[in-house]
């Protein structure tokens, strides 16, 4: 990830919060760091991730789908922009 390369926004990440168990693979493996640990708690007591896009900081979803592939809980859906 080079400092000056501008990423193109390609998708948003939808989190099925009730399925999340807070392992943070998604947060960790996101190459553009668009996911953060949220303050919210789900009914099992876990903090699901939150989609936190920040265009200024170059934090945009590039639709690599890695979060979806690493999520052990089927809790993530990457929705590509039309």
């Amino acid at each position, binding site marked *: 990830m080079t400092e000056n390369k501008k990423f193109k926004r390609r998708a948003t990440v939808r989190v099925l919060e009730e399925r999340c168990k807070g*392992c943070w*693979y998604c947060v960790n493996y996101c190459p553009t760091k668009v996911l953060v640990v949220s303050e919210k708690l789900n009914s099992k007591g876990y903090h699901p991730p939150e989609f936190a896009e920040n265009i200024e900081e170059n934090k945009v979803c590039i*639709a690599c789908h890695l979060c*979806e*592939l690493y999520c052990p809980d*089927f809790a993530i859906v*990457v929705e*590509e922009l039309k």
Partner: protein
Amino acid sequence: MSIMEDLRREEEKLLRTERLPHVWCPGCGIGIVLNAFLRSVLRRNMDPNKLVVVSGIGCTGRAAGYVNVDSFHTTHGRAIPFAVGIKFARPDLNVVVFSGDGDLFAIGGNHFINAARRNHDLLIIAVNNFTYGMTGGQHGPTTPTGAYTTTTPYGNPDRPFNIPHLAISLGAPYVARWTTYHVNQLQNSIHKALGMKGFRVIEIISQCPTVYGRRNYMRSPLSMMEYFQKNSIVKNDATFEEMELTYNGKIVVGEFRSVEDIPTYEERYEDIIRRAQNEGGD
């Protein structure tokens, strides 16, 4: 809609979503393997009504309970012979055994060996998390020598199975090993194996942070993933020694064997039926 989005949407239909969240612990790798498996099935355009998933007992044994196809949660160690019964009775079905290392190689080891020898047309997805997770983290047939578990408080004196080597020695036509870190390679490997025939074995090294990792210097899900990431080496022509797993050591992954056209048991039996009905008088 992109292919990936389409896959994700279709994947929901292959899950018994009303049963989610599943029983597996935070960060458990079994869900990652199940995810890769379902995507491979979808990429193959397989008819879900002709797909059967059979599991044994244990954490991985619960996988059958989440797939929305004909699925069976059987007794401990007996997933393979149960699957043999289904496949042999209905050779047109695609039968997948999805189970754990303790189930497949300790209590079910004899079935694994003999089913591989006979070359039944089954895909074996063997999730290896180095331990008996469901019962609280005792050492199993794949626990590395020296590892700490609830029944090896002074370190494990046992030697673990070299699963790919075992499968190759039995003539299994497809043998691969990946870790849950290798999500894409794993998915491609399952996808390829689903398109082949015979006794296909894919071992997936998976993390059990809850009862294995925390006793072996990997307290969080991420630290176990980090171990896989830093210590895995892809080597398709690995030797016996290289395939062996050591305590917190290197993990050699890859596609170790891929051979086409070895007749399956089911195919050979079609010939038996033909001979029984053609030979002799009545």
